[in-house]
């Protein structure tokens, strides 16, 4: 239940005729109470995601210990001394270790936690760059496509977004890399490095390819939502007031569709996190995904569950942020968010 602060202060003024500083203080307290009430209404939504995350962690651990093929990996790397017990024993041992904050050791003797802490920040950098790029570019793309008057240019722009969605990410990377190399071969100019690194230039290719798919998704979602506001009253009013079409879309329609767009963002983030592994591996970017694929043979299976926890935790955090963002942007969603 939401009680608006404005009404309470108005009542206070009319009944008690309070002096201004007291009134201001009262207003501030009311505002604070209002905000905390808003936050409290989000608690069930956040708690639900936290429970889902814990369930996901247990599921990952259970899945990681189902296969019994690790003994063979052990002999490959020449490391002995790993004795694998029965399934339930292994699983409970691992989970109890997890509760004490122990992620285990790799085959070469290093701490899994250290290895993850070493590689995770570079992955986060790439993910953040890709998501920011994808969101900004996707929304801009949708606005331009929507604001363009010609039917042909609009369908061409939206068609290219649909085309990008339909292409696998590895194809986009391989294509871009070969294009870069072909230009290098013929002209001797390296536009951007064909492999990723933590420098600004080295970040371009992985971030662009990782963000291409979510950008196309966001563009499509926002464009469809904008299409629905086409004949809304507020748009007609804005245009009647003398706003240009682009201005009306930017200042009036976009705010209205933002909560719809945010609702579908978590699934987009899920795809991005999946793509992170492929992009990192193909561009040899020194992040978690690359570490996982390169290291599986000599670091052993212990590195798998923490990486999966990391990715699924990231997904649920982004999901929660999307819920909070929706509640912040759209008053209609505030009560629904609690569900």
């Amino acid at each position, binding site marked *: 239940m939401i009680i608006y602060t404005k009404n309470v202060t108005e009542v206070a003024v009319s009944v008690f005729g309070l002096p201004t500083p007291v009134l201001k203080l009262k207003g501030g307290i009311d505002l604070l109470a209002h905000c905390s009430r808003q936050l409290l209404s989000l608690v069930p939504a956040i708690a639900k995601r936290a429970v889902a995350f814990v369930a996901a962690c247990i599921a*990952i651990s259970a899945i990681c210990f189902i296969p019994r093929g690790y003994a063979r990996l052990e002999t490959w790397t020449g490391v002995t001394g790993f004795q694998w017990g029965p399934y339930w024993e292994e699983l409970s041992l691992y989970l109890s270790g997890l509760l004490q904050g122990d992620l285990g050791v790799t085959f070469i003797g290093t701490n899994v936690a250290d290895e993850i802490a070493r590689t995770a920040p570079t992955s986060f950098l790439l993910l953040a760059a890709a998501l920011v790029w994808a969101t900004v570019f996707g929304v801009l793309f949708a606005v331009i496509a929507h604001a363009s008057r010609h039917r042909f240019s609009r369908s061409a722009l939206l068609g290219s977004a649909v085309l990008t969605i339909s292409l696998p990410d590895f194809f986009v990377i*391989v294509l871009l890399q070969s294009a870069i190399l072909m230009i290098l071969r013929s002209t001797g100019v390296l536009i951007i490095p064909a492999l990723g690194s933590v420098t600004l230039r080295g970040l371009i290719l992985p971030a662009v390819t990782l963000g291409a798919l979510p950008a196309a998704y966001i563009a499509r979602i926002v464009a469809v939502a904008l299409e629905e506001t086409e004949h809304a009253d507020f748009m007609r009013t804005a245009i009647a007031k003398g706003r240009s079409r682009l201005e009306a879309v930017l200042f009036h329609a976009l705010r209205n569709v933002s909560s719809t767009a945010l609702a579908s963002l978590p699934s987009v983030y899920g795809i991005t996190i999946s793509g992170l592994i492929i992009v990192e591996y193909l561009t040899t970017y020194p992040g978690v995904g690359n570490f996982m694929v390169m290291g599986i043979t000599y670091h052993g299976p212990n590195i*798998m569950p923490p990486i999966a926890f990391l990715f699924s935790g990231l997904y649920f955090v982004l999901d929660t942020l999307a819920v909070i963002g929706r509640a912040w942007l759209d008053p209609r969603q505030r009560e629904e968010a609690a569900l």
Partner: protein
Amino acid sequence: MRHWNLPLILGIFLCSVLLIMVLFPSVLAPGDPHERRVLWTNPDTGQKELAPHPPSRHFTLGTDNVGRDMYTRLVWGARFTLGMGLAIAAGRFLIALVIGTIAGWWGGALEWLVRQTAIVMSGLPLLLLSYVFLVGMKMLHPDTPDRPLLFIWILVFLGWPRLTEQVRLLVKNCRVLAHVESARAAGATETRIVSRHVLPIVSPQLITLVPMEMAFALIVVGQLGVLGMHAAAPYTVMAADGTAVTVHRLPEWCQMLGFTRHCLGKFPWLPLVPASALAASVLGLNMLAEGVRRRLMSRMGRGVGVG
């Protein structure tokens, strides 16, 4: 003005090409996909050349690093890769249709379970999970038997919750339809209502889900191929007389991509050809789904069909 349904046209075109490749590979590529030409005399120059041979008049798409014609391998590999995608999609559909319908219609504990499983699984990247599974299942080891079957099982097992949730929602939305109510009023049993009045209503949407699911499966299979997990590995078997015999690698797109991704700098056609083939099939299937969806929507707009 007439609206062209471009996605449908593109989808049907690409999918029919793929279908011909799957059904009649010998028509498109009469050569042998396993024939090696490591040292090959170029008839144009008369000189001996070392594989891989670049795309030319003799090899449309070039050859791989032991001189096998890429085009022939591509055509013969369609059967394997697309068959796997189809098998994964079909397996998921079978599970989703049964469990999703029961959960959506009768509800109860099963519905709760399906919903929660879908929520939890949505937070886990499918690629990561299947990779974990395949690593554990000795997929890295070459002589694991039944690799394709193992592959299909794992991807079906990990991918069904999302699809089941979709089917559940479709079926659940049918509960309030007028003709379902009238069927119930007429005394039809629940099973009869589901089979005669609900499933036919949702079948168009289900049909559009099939190519999309197949495209989705193909993307994951391709990504796993990039990471070095593919169903068609070279493997050595013991012959009857005790000698080791190396079985030829099946021409499979994901394996072709996974093995040659390092060659991008020097021999770009090696990874580009299988990657483009995978991209074209994913694109074709997605466009087919999109085109069918548009067509159904325009038909519904004219008042034909319900739901």
